[in-house]
């Protein structure tokens, strides 16, 4: 009994001493409240040099954490264990976070660099007037393919329906995302990728089932690694993944299918629990700076909504219609709508059934 009490006291004492040391260390590094900015972003989605540069310019220490899906990010913010000052969700998640009252409005007067953003990417349906969110990157969903292989087979690849060609047996890698894959099924039937009609969804699912012989695997982020290793010759990916792959390998090509596809936006927001709201605005302004945005774009490889940065970037990058599609093409692209839990779960159930469909 006595020993146990002694042990408890010892543990408590050690804990307090450690706590004190951590505190001292933090204040020695200037890590006091107001001086820290916690950023919650997708993995590998910023040039790390920019974080250092931001720290040097403002004296704010950035704590950078990453997530790999909108849903995972949302859960963490809802539970509020860590207080994030900046998060970078996609459009349908922003809609959802607005509904659930998880966001703080953005003060436009504190972000003079907002003028750098192309009008096309402001005032979109998911956030009218950009009250809560500031554009970060945007892109499309499309097909990355190996040109040598297609030449060998004498094929061209311009549409979703080309993927159903029996010559492509066991050649396709798909990304493990319900919206993306169901969207592909719906688009290939010329339906909207936000379709709410259950008959259309069933039809799309059956159409996807018939693609099974051509599918090699349905994978996550490892799709990058697998495509790089020539594991398959066709992959359904986001444009940024394609850009990176094409950077590595010359024989890869990216196409946004002609039936239409998804146009997505990742925007910066300030979660309700944020502590350093001023710092968050400074960070947004910093990212929107033309030079910083250009540097970030070169590193990340997705398309920037920053027209001042576009002017600074190589024509080779921004003149590339595969990644900076013109107005006519953008008109065929659709943004994901927040479908609501019931319909979203229907999409997911059908996707699960499709995955279970065996050859």
């Amino acid at each position: 009994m006595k020993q146990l009490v002694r042990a408890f006291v010892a543990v408590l004492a050690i804990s307090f001493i450690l706590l004190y040391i951590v505190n001292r260390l933090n204040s020695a590094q200037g890590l006091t409240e107001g001086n820290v900015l916690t950023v919650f972003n997708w993995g590998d989605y910023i040039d790390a040099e920019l974080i250092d540069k931001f720290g040097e310019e403002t004296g704010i220490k950035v704590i950078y954490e990453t997530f790999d899906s909108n849903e995972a990010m949302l859960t963490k913010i809802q539970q509020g264990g860590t207080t994030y000052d900046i998060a970078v969700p996609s459009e349908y998640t922003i809609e959802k976070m607005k509904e659930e009252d998880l966001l703080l409005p953005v003060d436009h007067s504190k972000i003079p660099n907002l003028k750098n953003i192309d009008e096309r990417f402001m005032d979109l349906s998911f956030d009218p007037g950009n009250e809560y969110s500031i554009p970060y990157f945007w892109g499309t969903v499309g097909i990355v393919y190996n040109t040598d292989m297609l030449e060998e087979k004498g094929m061209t690849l311009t549409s979703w329906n080309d993927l159903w060609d029996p010559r492509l047996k066991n050649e396709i890698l798909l990304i493990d995302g319900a919206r993306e894959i169901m969207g592909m099924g719906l688009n290939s039937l010329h339906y909207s990728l936000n379709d709410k009609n259950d008959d259309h969804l069933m039809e799309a699912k059956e159409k996807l089932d018939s693609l099974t012989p051509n599918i090699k695997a349905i994978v996550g982020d490892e799709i990058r690694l697998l495509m790089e290793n020539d594991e398959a010759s066709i992959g359904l990916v986001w444009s940024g993944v394609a850009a990176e792959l094409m950077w590595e390998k010359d024989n890869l090509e990216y196409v946004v299918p002609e039936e239409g596809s998804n146009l997505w936006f990742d925007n910066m927001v300030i979660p309700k629990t944020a502590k350093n709201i001023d710092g968050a605005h400074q960070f947004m302004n910093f990212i929107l700076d033309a030079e910083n945005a250009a540097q970030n774009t070169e590193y990340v490889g997705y398309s920037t909504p920053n027209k001042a940065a576009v002017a600074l970037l190589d024509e080779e990058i921004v003149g590339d219609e595969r990644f900076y599609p013109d107005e006519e093409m953008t008109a065929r692209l659709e943004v994901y709508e927040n479908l609501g839990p019931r319909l979203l779960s229907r999409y997911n159930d059908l996707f699960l059934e499709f995955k279970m469909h065996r050859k």
Partner: protein
Amino acid sequence: MKNRSRNFYLIPYVIWIALFVIAPLFLVLYYSFFNIEGEFTLSNYQKFFTPVYLKMTFSSFWYAFLITLFTLLIAYPTAYLLTKTKHKQLWLLLIIVPSWINLLLKAYAFLGIFGTYGAANSILEVIGIGSQQILFTDFSFIFVSVYIFLPFMILPIFNALDELNPSLLYASSDLGASQWTTFTRVIFPLTLDGVKAGCQIVFIPALSLFMLTRLIAGNRVITLGTAIEQHFLVTQDWGMGSTIAVFLILAMVLIMIFTGTRKKGVL
């Protein structure tokens, strides 16, 4: 006094069990009664008995069974040979060490080994079989799973074999039993508890494998674990995820009872 202090020592254990074992189980049960819109309902249970989830349950059990079977087939002779070696603790250590490496790392390593241009295919080329698709097949899934679970099966069997009294074996051979008879009538029955423990340790996690189904099987194998992961992380349908978890827990309890060690041998 002595009794009271003993109870006092129990407190950490009781708190631990209550907070991290009992409470989560009740939470899982609680969540399973709510649909995605947060209404109280039994519809999740109804949904579980639709062909989709029944098929998934069946295939989970089937794969878990295959994994356990192959693990046992490899582990038993290995454990047996280990007990016969001179430096058995060293050999045992060598088998256990790989299990210290993170499962994800090992899975990624297999992505390289089994790839179209990976080591496995190079070997197949050299011996003249020619390149095969290994990755994203049932074979690769079961192979990698067996590899990962092997140490957990070897350990209990090794312990059981090691504790076997050698005089029983001498007696058996003195009485004229052939080696095969000695194995089937003496060694195997006496190590059955080790086999059962090993099967439990392998079968139960194998039922809910989920990372490997994506990395190694390319989502061509869908287990209940995959579905739970998807419901919690993607759909955010915690109710359905919990319902599947409830059935998994039930299945595990049944397996524990079924393979539980009985003091009085059946044989």
